[in-house]
């Protein structure tokens, strides 16, 4: 099973084959809510990288001493601790971003990607594998969010990372930075990834 594949495959699977947002449809709430600009998507991704890698490492270390019956509450407490750290760090060093993300930083606790990886992977594998898996998954998540944020920012206000891309004559599609734009863009991205996958399988 998991032991057979190499470490690099372990990392790469999170980027495409098991991409949490596009292929497994996990963690959709933050993916939709905070991606009204590329920088917000990227910072949410970084917060998730921190939380997922740290909690995977801790849970993988403690996997033999956590009783099976109380594993879910244990996972949640470990995750909530790291989320609180990430939240306070953002508020202290990047107050603007922290304001833009609002309650979605504490809501990383209930992001199904994180709990899902602990249950499915970190609690059964060695520390190095768990950490590599966590990096792969969360980087896959970050890339997806950054692309989603860039597309919406580009069409909605004509910039990417606040750098003007579109010519002045471009009329911004306000709807893209509002709620419907999030659903539409993600829907199209899932459709495109299905198409690319089908093409690759042939």
């Amino acid at each position, binding site marked *: 099973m998991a032991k057979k594949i190499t470490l690099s495959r372990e990392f790469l699977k999170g980027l495409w084959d098991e991409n949490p947002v596009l292929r497994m449809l996990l963690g*959709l709430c933050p993916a939709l809510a905070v991606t009204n600009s590329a920088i917000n998507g990227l910072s949410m991704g970084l917060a998730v990288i921190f939380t997922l890698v740290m909690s995977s490492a801790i849970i993988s270390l403690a996997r033999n001493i956590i009783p099976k019956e109380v594993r879910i509450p244990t996972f949640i*407490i470990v995750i909530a601790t790291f989320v*609180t750290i990430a939240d306070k760090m953002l508020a202290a060093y990047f107050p603007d971003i922290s304001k833009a993300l609002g*309650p979605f930083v504490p809501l990383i606790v*209930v992001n199904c990607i994180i709990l899902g990886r602990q249950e499915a992977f970190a609690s059964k594998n060695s520390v190095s594998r768990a950490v590599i898996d966590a990096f792969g998954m969360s980087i896959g998540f970050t890339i997806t969010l950054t692309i989603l944020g860039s597309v919406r920012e580009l069409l909605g206000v004509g910039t990417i990372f606040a750098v003007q891309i579109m010519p002045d004559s471009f009329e911004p599609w306000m*709807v893209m930075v*509002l709620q419907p734009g*999030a659903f539409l863009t993600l829907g199209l991205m899932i459709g495109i990834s299905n198409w690319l996958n089908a093409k690759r399988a042939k």
Partner: protein
Amino acid sequence: MVNIFIIFLSAVIVNNYVLVNFLGICPFIGVSKKISPAVSMGMATTFVMTLTSAVSWLINKYILEGLNLQFLQTVSFILVIASLVQLVEMFVKKISKPLYDALGIFLPLITTNCAILGVALFLVLKEYNFIESIIFGFSAGVGFTLAIVIMAGIREELELADVPEYFKGAAITMIVAGCLALAFMGFSGLI
């Protein structure tokens, strides 16, 4: 009274939890294939949300603020929710078999529904009092139910539609949700 009505209207329609605030998307996509499970999920969520908002308001006011421990908010709220869901499950199983059969399998899923933790975090952010918090929790649940039932209704019809192959399933659901969100944006000037 007017205040309470505004909170209700705002949480159900204008700031609908799913379509405007993006909370609870996972069950919104996952449990909206048929109308009847969607209704049960909505009911279970409303029930837990109302309870959670009452309990987390009390905890925040008397324990966390009293002891100046606000940084433990996330940790304590998620623990409250997890244990509350467990308690509700046992309670419902004891008192009413039909209700348990209807809500049963949805209750464990609710723990990781971000809408519930979202309600707890929002009511602290908005500084509601006890009664307002309960109303807010209840109406957020009603709003969630409204969105998921409408979505299930659309998806039942969508089964018959001729959707491009690669857009079947999640992709078309997202796009439909986008149209629905567009419709809900029309309410935004209401309050």
